[in-house]
């Protein structure tokens, strides 16, 4: 039986106001990029519970991408700062869990940066393709 080549699966959480709008823009501008990161729209990057990241990894994702508004631009004033603090702390925990740095990423992408969505998803897909699948021991 032929085995399908490994393709990384990335779960992307994009905030409604900036990064999701940017990915919409990338679409209308017909920017082609890797199809490996289906997007889940959340109202704010501050809505991304660290449990979502872990749940995605546990359920078979190879990477998680969080996209939010640039510092100072949050629609809810503080949400992206909370996201940043959670992310920095979560990264430390993930390192202790042996999860490689490339697998979980936070990016600030404003509504006008469609090309940035293209670049980030391409780059992350290529990195994870090189890194290989995330196998977590399950009980």
């Amino acid at each position, binding site marked *: 039986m032929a085995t399908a080549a490994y393709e990384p699966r990335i779960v992307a959480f994009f905030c409604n106001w900036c990064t999701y709008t940017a990915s919409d823009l990338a679409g209308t501008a017909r920017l082609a990029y890797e199809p490996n990161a289906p997007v889940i729209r959340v109202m704010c990057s*501050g809505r991304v*519970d*660290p*449990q979502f*990241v*872990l*749940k995605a*990894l*546990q359920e078979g994702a190879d990477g998680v991408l969080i996209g939010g508004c640039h*510092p100072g631009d949050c629609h809810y004033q503080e949400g992206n*700062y*909370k996201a*940043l*603090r*959670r992310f*920095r*702390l*979560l990264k*430390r*925990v993930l390192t*202790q*869990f*042996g*999860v*490689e740095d490339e697998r979980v990423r936070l990016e600030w992408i404003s509504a006008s940066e469609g090309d940035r969505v293209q670049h980030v998803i391409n780059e992350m897909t290529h990195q994870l393709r090189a890194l290989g699948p*995330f*196998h*977590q*021991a*399950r*009980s």
Partner: protein
Amino acid sequence: MAQKPKVAFYWCASCGGCEEAVVDLEENILKVVDAVDIVLWPVAMDFKKKDIEAMEDGSIAVAFINGAVRMSEQEEWVHLLRKKAQMVVAFGACAHLGGIPGLANLNTKQQVFDTCYRDVPSNDNQAKTVPGLDSTVDGHHLHLPVFWDTVKSLAQVIDVDYYLPGCAPPPDLIWGAINAILTGQLPPKGAVLSPNKACCDDCPRKDTKPDKIEISEIKRPATHLMDPELCFMAQGFICMGPATRSGCGNRCIEGNMPCRGCFGPMDDVYDQGAKFLSAFASILAPKDEAGIDKLLDQIPDPTGTFYRFSLPTSLLHRRKTGAPV
């Protein structure tokens, strides 16, 4: 006289504190002994595995099992007890969540053995002897249980009916659970026998919590004095209260120590450590990456702190196998 219900107590990877907790029932233990027939309790009474094996399936009314499961022998015992008992109660944090032994899931079996039998300075083991599975001494053959790479909670090995949380469960919860079992007044299967609300909800320091907390210095009990009345989070100490189930009677808080999370998460929380991380990170003061990282440097072991009791039952269960050290 009607036959008294049969009760078994068993311990797996545990410290013995849960056994103490049973004795802490004080005079109530006499009522327990009056009401039930204890058929297994290795810490206190002499029964053998073959005694249990000889019993009919389902003839034990309830088995209270404490400790995490990390060896093949423990696995055999809990499967045996599951077969013989109508009801299994995971007793204490280790059986419920994996507990302190579960922190070994940040390492492998090899690392645990290297540390315990080779590297610890207090060891006197010049021959570098490490326990093996089989050995023969003077013609006598010895077979030891398999030590697993991964520590598991009880429910990850057998079907569990109820959970009694805590390190160790407090006497009033144990007494309440025993009464509920004896009178048949039990919640639906799978319930944790403790109120489903956060520790902060009945914390004696609740009123001292300011509306908004901003932490710009993370303090530790070992290096900072603790105010005996003020909310620990407001002081800058890591207190697991917001992400921990109540019912403990605030024993740590009354002793002027922040909550460490032994009661585990509330219902509907997948991962206690991540939930706490989320709450805690949101109240840190800095907004820039460098400032955040500098503050976070003050937490030497975030995983060991946030997952102190719940690592095996966390979403990722253990350190990624094969990950470089």
